[in-house]
């Protein structure tokens, strides 16, 4: 006998008072030699930055979250996780006003071409879908923009 699961509802526009009242965006200490800045923009289907969104990042051991700022930007300090069953990656959850349920996606690392090419999950995506999950190298870190819609729309997972 299975209980009905509680359905999701949006975080709304005021989640910061409950979820972003402390700094939680450093999965590793920024002085750690493995520390890698991860930055990005959260963008809606009209190309407008989403300024009331929130991103959570989880690598199976380390977790962080960050609300988007007035320009739709988020930033983390991450470390590349050890290679497990596939290419190294980070689990990304996207929350926001207008999102009735959080969306799941992944960041893969741009300097892991070989592991990415061999990754079972990436291999079953179309080239377009796959491209949206790959971070870009930027000076001293990586960049991962999240587009909810449009020609650059990020690939999200059914869950």
């Amino acid at each position, binding site marked *: *006998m*299975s*209980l*009905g*699961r*509680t*359905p*999701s*509802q*949006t*975080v*709304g*526009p*005021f*989640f*910061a*008072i*409950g*979820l972003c*009242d402390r700094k939680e965006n450093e999965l590793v200490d920024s002085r750690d030699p493995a520390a890698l800045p991860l930055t990005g923009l959260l963008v*809606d*289907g*009209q190309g*407008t930055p989403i300024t*009331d969104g929130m991103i959570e990042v*989880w*690598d*199976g051991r380390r977790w962080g979250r960050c609300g988007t700022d007035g320009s739709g930007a988020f930033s983390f300090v991450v470390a590349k*996780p*050890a*290679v*497990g*069953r*596939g290419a190294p990656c980070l*689990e990304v*959850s996207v929350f*926001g*006003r*207008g*999102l*009735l*349920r*959080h*969306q*799941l996606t*992944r960041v893969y690392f741009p300097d892991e071409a070989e592991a990415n090419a061999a990754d*079972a*999950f990436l291999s079953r*995506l179309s080239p377009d*879908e796959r491209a949206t999950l790959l971070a870009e190298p930027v000076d001293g870190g990586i960049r991962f923009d999240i587009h*909810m*819609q*449009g020609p650059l*729309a*990020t*690939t*999200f*997972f*059914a*869950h």
Partner: protein
Amino acid sequence: MSEGPVGVDPSVVLPDDPSFGTEVQVDYPGYRSTRWRAPSRPLVTMPEELHSLGAPVFGETTVDESDSDLTRQHAGEPLGERITVSGRVLDEDGRPVRGALIEVWQANAAGRYRHEVDQHPAPLDPNFTGAGRSVTDDDGRYHFITVKPGSYPWGNHENAWRPAHIHFSIFGRFFLERLVTQMYFPGDPLFAFDPIFHAVRDPRSRELLIARFDLPTTQPQWALAYEWDIVLGRGGRDTTPIEGTP
């Protein structure tokens, strides 16, 4: 098919439709902000390993006792109807989820959030922040003391008002059990007009968002008690969380 509620644009609240399943309809058109934010690209089947991926563990040390009493975070007591909100976090088999971090946030009794974007002309309460945290015990139980939030207007459509609600964020044991939702109060006259509530198209599933008034645990001369159980679901079949990728 029933007629929609009187006085609201029929596109704001669509008729019930259990064929959408028990989860929320993410691109529900009556909630206007979904238009440019709900994902447009077809969702892909998730990576297999997510089914068994554990969630971050926060533990008891994350929260102080005062975090779950929203009426004692300032020098004085907040105005409003004092309530307790309690319940259990369960998995779909009815087993308690222990050690689940619950974070809540809400408007004050006048319907105003302590947030710079909220410009509703209702008073802020200097004795109320409206945020709390709790970790479930071995029986999956949680308990908050707070004041009943007021309803408040929003810009979604003409004369739009949200039913009173408390926002809940929950981390279960599995990554896929992550849930952010809203708890509503029984008998709210605004249910019929609210597109966020009605974005859950199955009426039985919608009922799961509504707390139950509980007289036996209502404390005489002190606080009304509401009970609300939260059921965390996930797609997978594994029963033991694993620590990410080895």
